[in-house]
């Protein structure tokens, strides 16, 4: 009995922290329709700022409370600055570009935090009152956890009160329903949006500082928190505060029991819960269908097969890659191989995002499954290279099929978030299952027998893979897929099974990414968790968006350009901040993408 009680209480305490962050995210999304990737970073800033404030204050509860509020206010101010400086300028940009811009913010803030506070974890020295226990049902329970348990419902109540009893709150809810109507009523939208964003950021900061006593301020908070927050917001229903609390309790309690019952499998458990909820209620526990998100500008561009000019360019490119071993040294060869892999990786994402119409923020998951699949096949089962290279895309394809079966029905933002969440889980498995994957050390020593010969294997597989994808996109299947993206109801009325087509495209795309991952593993001789990191997923996104989503040529050019750019310019200290700045600049100055920009200049 006491076991159940204490685990439930522990779960409720962590639910409060989860809720604070998720509530901010969901409020911001409800009004601005921006999925704020940087929300985890605001939480991380809350932890660091809170650490700096609290370590300078007298250590009694009253000063602690004051310090916590000051931290929340500080992060709210940072949030407001972020909204005014960046987000305000991109509300009209396509959804994916907004996500990308906020990811740029994640990168910049990560390096800014590293620069300001250094690389070490900063635990909060805990005064006696923070270490106190109370006796509950015969077992000791931390007092501060009880405080946390109370804070969740208090904040929920406060938010509901504000949203239902104040003029500002009513306007926010109205804007959540219909932005344009609120604007037509003469409400200053800019002030409304900025204040909502500040509120959300403040909540994130509050969540960050309140998590300090149980942990530390560290640089991993941003991505760890954003993944959990995404899951909670999706499970609760985008834009629903009550739903966020419900989902936080569900997942918090489940994790508390999961840690004891199934240690090491909690992340998988969370994903299973999410999958079950979304199958039963596709828009989350308390969410509602907000209708189709507006289609991106790129979607309506006429898709043409390559003309003679493009075929010539592709031929010259292929000739250069064929001759590369004669033209460049080992470093150049390494870059050439990376470019080839990036090409296939980006082309596979293009299939999902372009003709498939399914934005993915976690494409590295399939790449990683392929990479680790090949590496583990080679290491543990002594599988010869050809078989490992064949097995990797099958593994990745199967995984994509299994995940896709749950999520391909969902619309844009949900899909992007869930692919990201799944990628984070794959990443966590790669890091945590040390016995199998070697953890952060990776799987080493997976070399091809003949390195020079392998370059041509890589060339054949990458170029061949891209050509196969291209052929399929111009087959009746590809057209039916695109029909479903362009006009879902029209396609269904013509008898096209859009869900099945999307699932097939999702699987195909995952398999192709898995092949890219396997080739990469053999070219580097190893597989590392970084292959599955969020930033690797974003790499693929940038390649696709840089080149333009309208045709397969886009991601190929994007992959070559980006790989070259990255190796030349960005592999240095504070590369995250530089990359982030590049992304933000890209979104600010080319809000319709390079392809859209070129289209307009014509």
């Amino acid at each position, binding site marked *: 009995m006491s076991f159940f009680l204490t685990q439930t209480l522990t779960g409720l305490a962590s639910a409060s922290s989860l809720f604070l962050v998720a509530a901010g995210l969901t409020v911001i999304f409800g009004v601005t329709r921006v999925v704020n990737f940087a929300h985890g970073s605001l939480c991380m800033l809350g932890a660091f700022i809170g650490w700096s404030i609290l370590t300078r204050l007298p250590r009694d509860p009253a000063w602690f409370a004051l310090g916590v509020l000051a931290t929340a206010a500080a992060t709210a101010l940072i949030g407001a600055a972020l909204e005014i400086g960046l987000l305000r300028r991109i509300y009209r940009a396509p959804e994916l570009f907004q996500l990308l811009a906020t990811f740029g913010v994640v990168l910049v803030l990560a390096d800014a935090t590293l620069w300001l506070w250094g690389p070490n974890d900063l635990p909060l020295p805990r005064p006696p009152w923070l270490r106190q226990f109370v006796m509950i049902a015969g077992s000791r329970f931390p007092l501060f956890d009880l405080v946390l348990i109370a804070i969740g419902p208090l904040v929920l109540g406060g938010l509901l009160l504000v949203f239902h009893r104040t003029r500002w709150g009513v306007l926010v809810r109205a804007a959540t329903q219909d932005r344009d109507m609120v604007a037509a009523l003469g409400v200053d939208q800019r002030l409304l949006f900025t204040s909502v964003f500040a509120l959300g950021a403040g909540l994130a900061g509050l969540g960050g500082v309140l998590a300090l006593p149980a942990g530390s301020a560290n640089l991993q908070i941003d991505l760890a928190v954003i993944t959990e927050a995404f899951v909670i917001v999706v499970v609760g229903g985008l834009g629903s505060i009550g739903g966020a609390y419900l989902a936080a309790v569900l997942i918090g309690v489940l994790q508390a029991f999961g840690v004891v019952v199934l240690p090491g499998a909690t992340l998988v458990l969370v994903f299973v819960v999410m999958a079950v909820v979304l199958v039963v209620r596709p828009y989350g526990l308390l969410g509602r269908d907000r209708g189709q998100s507006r289609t991106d500008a790129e979607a309506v*561009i*006429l898709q043409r097969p390559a003309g003679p000019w493009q075929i010539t360019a592709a031929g010259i490119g292929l000739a250069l890659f064929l001759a590369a071993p004669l033209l460049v040294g080992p470093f150049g060869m390494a870059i050439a191989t990376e470019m080839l892999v990036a090409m296939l990786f980006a082309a596979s994402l293009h299939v999902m995002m372009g003709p498939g119409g399914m934005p993915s923020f976690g494409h590295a998951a399939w790449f990683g499954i392929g990479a680790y699949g090949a590496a583990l096949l080679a290491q543990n089962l002594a599988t010869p290279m050809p078989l490992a290279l064949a097995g990797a895309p099958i593994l990745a394809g199967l995984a994509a099929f299994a995940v896709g079966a749950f999520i391909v029905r969902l619309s844009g933002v949900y899909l992007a978030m869930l692919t990201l969440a799944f990628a984070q889980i794959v990443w966590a498995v790669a890091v945590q299952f040390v016995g199998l994957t070697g953890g952060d050390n990776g799987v080493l020593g997976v070399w091809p027998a003949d390195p020079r010969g392998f370059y041509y294997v890589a060339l054949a597989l990458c170029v061949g893979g891209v050509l196969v994808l291209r052929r399929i996109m111009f087959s009746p*299947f590809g*057209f039916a897929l*695109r029909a479903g993206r362009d006009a879902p*109801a*029209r396609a269904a*009325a013509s*008898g096209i099974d859009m869900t099945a087509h999307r699932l097939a495209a999702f699987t195909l795309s995952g398999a192709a990414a898995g092949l890219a991952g396997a080739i990469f593993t053999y070219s580097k001789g190893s597989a590392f968790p970084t292959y599955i990191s969020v930033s690797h997923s974003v790499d693929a996104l940038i390649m696709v968006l840089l080149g333009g989503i309208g045709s397969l040529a886009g991601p190929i050019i994007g992959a070559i350009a980006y790989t070259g750019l990255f190796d030349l310019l960005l592999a240095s200290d504070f590369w995250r901040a530089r990359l982030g700045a590049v992304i933000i600049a890209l979104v600010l100055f080319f809000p319709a993408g390079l392809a859209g920009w070129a289209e307009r200049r014509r």
Partner: protein
Amino acid sequence: MTVLAVTGLQKRFGGVRAVDDVTFSIVAGEILALIGPNGAGKSTCFNLINGQIAPDHGTIHLHGRDITGLAPRQIARLGVGRSFQIAAGFASMTVRQNLQTAFAAHHRQSWRFWHDAMGAHIAEAEALLARVGLVAQADRAAGVLAYGDLKRLDLAIALAGAPGLLLMDEPGAGMALAERGALMRLVQKLAREDGMAVLFTEHDMAAVFAIADRVVVLNRGKILASGDPASVRADPLVQARYLGAGR
């Protein structure tokens, strides 16, 4: 030969009976217009038949087969075509490719991964383009068509499925008067030539009385009157409730 038989159809939204005990049928080659004031239940009735929503009570039979509760895609597979109130084409394709895609779907070829989609169904597509008058637009992107042309493309995509029953939700909405008349005459011609049954909703009474063989008038979810256009027009109840005494 009865193509569509709707019996005792009922759908509630909360306390509102949007469709209340509606019964009618259509035979091959017949054009039936479903009219009524806003909120009469036309669109609900329409969406019940095409499978977008499921009825609370009642049945829908197509060629004698019960299709109540099937999904839109399954109903499409049974030979029911539909055009949309807000016309939609596949914007990233040319007009011809739109039809090639529709023909491939009709011939159950949407799962071919290795054939060249643009080399298939060319003759069929050309013939249909000629029928709906879109030959000149064949190589233009559907995303840049004028709205009247898009309406015709929408209809052509529906026709590519060789439907035994065509459902049209306000086919004239958003079209210029002359274009509307041409489209309705085209539909009439197709119904006559192919023996296709047509069910459509429409606000434009001129279009309704010009081409409909039979008219069903809905009011507050119930059938107010039905019959041939002339008798419906003369019905005092219809005049009072819908057409207006002044007409």
